[in-house]
């Protein structure tokens, strides 16, 4: 039943040549059939490694007029095409962003998840800053780390954005968490 002859105590083995050939053959063939199914199973399991994350173009998120004039951030969902394995769904939330006015025709856009371990970062209006409820990272309005004791290795992730004809367009993407570098995934 077992295909692991190498564990057989040596003193039990008959020593004629035929038995030796049998042992080697049994070990080789046994090894072959033992690894076949696990290998077949391994490829689909490793399949996610060869798939890249979503790459999106600019998505319209809101109108510029909807942003508070004092530079207070507002949270918006980003609606775009969501591809989830076999499913493809148009115009559904794929994430959310904080948007603040920084000028007459400019905005700052920050990803709403914490760069530390991916919790959802809240905006604290009284403290005029962002605060992560999970591990107590705090960020300034521009997204930089506010409290040096914050566990987050980097400030909040800014996203590329433009204001065109009174509409705010954002290039939405996700970044790897937990590292000082900002790597898109």
């Amino acid at each position: 039943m077992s295909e692991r002859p190498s564990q057989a105590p040596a003193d039990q083995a008959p020593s004629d040549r035929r038995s030796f050939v049998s042992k080697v053959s049994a070990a080789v063939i046994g090894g072959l059939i033992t690894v076949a199914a696990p290998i077949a199973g391994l490829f689909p399991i490793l399949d996610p490694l060869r798939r890249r994350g979503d790459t999106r173009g600019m998505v319209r998120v809101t109108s510029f007029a909807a942003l508070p004039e004092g530079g207070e951030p507002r949270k918006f969902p980003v609606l775009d095409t969501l591809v989830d394995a076999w499913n493809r769904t148009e115009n559904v939330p794929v994430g959310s962003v904080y948007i603040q006015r920084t000028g007459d025709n400019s905005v700052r856009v920050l990803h709403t998840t914490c760069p530390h371990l991916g919790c959802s970062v809240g905006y604290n209006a009284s403290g005029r800053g962002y605060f992560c409820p999970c591990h107590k990272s705090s960020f300034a309005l521009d997204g930089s780390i506010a409290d040096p004791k914050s566990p987050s290795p980097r400030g909040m992730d800014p996203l590329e954005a433009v204001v065109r004809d009174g509409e705010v367009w954002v290039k939405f993407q996700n970044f790897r968490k937990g590292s000082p570098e900002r790597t898109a995934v």
Partner: protein
Amino acid sequence: MSDWRNWLDSRTGYKGLVHEALFENVPGGARWRYVWGSTLTFFFVVQIITGIALWMSYSPSSQTAWESVYWIQNQMWGGWLLRGIHHFAAQAMTALLVLHLMQVVIDGAYKAPREVNYWFGVALLLLVLALSLTGYLLPWDQNGYWSTAVSTNLVGMSPGIGTALQTILVGGASYGHHTLTRFFALHAGLVPLLIGLMIVGHVYLFRRHGLTPTQPIRKPDEGFWPEQVLRDAVACLAVFAAVLYFAVREHGAPLGAPADPAEQFAAARPEWYFLFLFQFLKYFPGSAEIIGAIVLPTLVLVLIAAMPILGRWRLGHRFNVGLLGVLLAGAGLLTVQAFQADRNDTDYQISRRIAARDAERAVQLASTGIPTTGALTLMREDAYTQGPRIFSRNCASCHRFDGHDGLGYPLPADSISASDLKDFGSRAWVSGFLHADTILSRKYWGGTIHTEGDMTGWLGDHQPETDEEKATRANVVLALSSQAQLASQKALDQRDSARIAAGITYMRNTDYGCASCHKFQDVGTDSPELTGWGSREWMIAFINDPEHPRFFGRDNDRMPSFGKEKSLSDKEIAMVVDWLRKEWRMPPSTVAAARR
């Protein structure tokens, strides 16, 4: 090296275990006939490994089961091979079970003191069959769905608790999410667990009683290792190679179109090893069905289970061997009959072709992304899939498509009363239509009241004779056909634009051309209108209401106003038109490319 081995052995006693496992005494030496139990165990492990790997990507619900299996089969790295191995290893296990049972019965290995172990084996046989029955449903394709409907309805037929048992098994009164979750829990949880436990018991008892050598013993005893292990391994490798061969040849496992409770599936068949039961049922029509479906199979099982007891009788062993032989021969005969019946059944062959067409189309549509409502939504809105079905249900009582009903089923010739709509609007179609001889054939107006109409009369009076007349008629054919604006003819229409222009000039002539009767562009008065004749818009409006003054008006010959009377929805009319025009959202010719 030996230090840690000794350490481990003193903590676990593994050396004794290995010794126990490998040095089982094989009386009379290793033999090929002893390999079946080991191969079965091996394939059970293969199924667990491949099954867990599949589990990582499978999603049991009626909107995701087919979709996730499609994803495994067509999109994941090596997914098709994994499915193929799991699928064909299941078939191999069934064949191995039969061989193992034969070996045990022929060698008399069921006799005292091995009765209990034999019963473990019979229970394992049934559990493995339960695995294949539950696994058949999981891809949630048409075949799995309709075959499982049959097998669960058979459960419902069993006396007393049948209905309750069926409802529990199916997870409700109809098939859906809970059928899949239950079948999946049985297939990947409960049944394999029971099999695992039973294998432990089976192997324990086997080791306790030892092998049953057939007499006479000619060779000295041997240890299990290495000679028997080698034979077992070679047998496993050989069967595994066969499994791989089929998995590669079939490019994985079959996956039909997504299950559709509203779409009849005439090609439903169980796995080949259940075909004998399928065929057997045919001999028990009506109320006798319960005898074929439940009573007799149960009796046979009782007989098989009773073999150790029957074997005590003086002729018992011979009886048992004979019984098994008769049962297997009978099952074999029934299987052959089932295959033969299907081969000679043209309707079944056609339904198989439709099933293959749908399966291929489903994969193609899915490759662009599936809505959250599932792949069935794509199929239901697809002109290529629905067109022939709508045609068959609504149009084929009068019309034909290439001589058949649209799906491929033949229809009686004497029921044809309207034109054959294959390639409607194309040059070939128009050319036959605008000809005094062929317009009277059944392919065109031979079965309609229009045989007596003005058009037929005009064609008879104006048969082209000179070369010039023939050239003009040919140009009119091109011109009329170009009105249909068929996508498939676009290049041809562009190439022949000069001839088409000449044809249109003739058509517009109100003295002798088409416009002497028909309304065409801004000239002529009478119907049917030829402007955009045969175009998508024209066809949709025509099917909507052929009695409209734009079309046949009061000359309409029996064609219902499908849209106006609401017997077909706008969407259905558009789908049948797009199908007739071969203007699908995705041309099916790219199917093969999308699959590889």
